[in-house]
């Protein structure tokens, strides 16, 4: 069993406008824009499901207040 990731993100595909700033900002590069469109017609961000460090940088890069929630392993 691999060591679990330190962090995790919850992404709101409907709030996301697909600007890609979080993808650019993410240090471990574990975010990408989805191939499909959301209801607003954007390619929303999605998580590769592995490798999040819980650094929170994507949260601050994102212009939408509630599109990204960042979690970290409880101490």
């Amino acid at each position, binding site marked *: 069993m691999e060591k679990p990731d330190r962090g995790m993100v919850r992404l709101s595909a409907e709030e996301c*406008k*697909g600007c890609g*700033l979080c993808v650019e900002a993410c240090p471990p590069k574990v975010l990408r824009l989805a191939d499909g469109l959301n209801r607003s017609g954007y390619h929303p961000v999605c998580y590769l499901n592995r490798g999040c460090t819980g650094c929170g940088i994507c949260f*601050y890069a994102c*212009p939408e207040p*509630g599109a990204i929630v960042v979690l970290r392993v*409880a101490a």
Partner: protein
Amino acid sequence: MPEYTVIHEKARSFYDLYERKAELQHQTHYCPGCGHGIVHKLVAEAIDELGIQDRTILVTPVGCSVFGYYYFDVGNVQAAHGRASAVACAVKRALPESVVLSYQGDGDLAAIGTAEILHAANRGENITVIFVNNAIYAMTGGQMAPTTLLGQSSTTTPSGRNEWNEGYPLHVCELLAALEAPVYLERVALGNNKQIMGAARAVRRAIGNQVKSLGFSLVEILSPCPTIWRKDPVEAQHWVRDEMAKVFPLGVFRDRGTEAGARPAAAPPPALDEVPRLLGIVNGSRLMTDRGGATVDWRIKVAGFGGQGVLMLGEVLAEAGLDAGMEVSWLPSYGPEMRSGTSNCHVRLAAAPIDSPLVSRPNVLLALNQPSLEKFLPTVEPGGWVFYNGQTPPRNGVRADVRVIGRPFTQVGDELGDARAGNMVMLGALLEATGLLPDEAVEGALKRVVKSERWLELDRRALARGRAAVREGSLP
């Protein structure tokens, strides 16, 4: 599966659902990659961290952030273009316990609202200004902003901003740093992760300063506008970092946060029942003598040079008339006449309520100089009184159908100690000749109108001298 806890999520100071928005209430109205959303998050997070959500009042401008109240679950006041800082000042002064944020864009703050921001900063208003600089008018479709870079094209600088036509980008932090009062001025940017974290600290600092009552704080945030700039969001972010920050250097331009003491709090308001007294509103009754007869109707014109006490003479008459139980009015000439050196006033003392306070047909003319005599003598009602400052009236200052009393009143005042007391010498003569007002009313009026003891004494002597001048038929 390990247990995860949330470390970053939507701030509590945002509404869960943006119900004030007509549609798409789950997301902001901002374009993809717009800096406003990031700035909103930094502001909301600072409000949460400082625990001031209930106390916070956000003043939003005209520009893309006009709808800040869609998102911020705080008190919201939307302002006219350029006036957010003026509105914020008054909100803060009305509610010193509140935390007032003026959120403004570059057109709002640095063009149309330049006077308001400069003076708010110069007064050291205890407000926090969040200044979002994206070098363009975005909401109106991409016209030049005062912060548009040289060479940058916009719909109103189609060939690029040219310093010979449009001047240079305006540096707000540098401008405000020339003022004494601001406690904190910093320029930050949203050009990369590190810059965004710096912006977060600056926003928290600027709001925290207000919570500590330190005074005026402003954070200028260089912010991307991918749509108008016609760049994708990532390119726009790079442009902030690589181009805007070159023209608008980042940094702290003023930080008195540590040395500044809290601004003095306003004195507590007085008890409500103290207010009339504090306004000088007098209670009690006045000395009331008789009305001087049921038909009395004195229409008095006082005229002379400025400095001869024309208005004051009239004021004593009106005050005394009030004490004597008459209806009174006092109307001064003001304006260019006053400034070019002549002065006059209209006084009415009557038994009946006064219709017009203007005296166009006086029955008493007090002419302290020759031009006034010449100007107003023809208006005097037949049978009226004319008091003239001189031994003999000029040839065109004679009328057979009025009673003229000429004495060198000003000269007499001068002999008594001050030429300006000549007005009271003339008043004494008027009172003696006409019996217009009782002595005690005049004395009471004098005490209210004349504040200095020395002048009161001089004016009393002047009045007596004026009375004597008439009584004895010549100058004593």
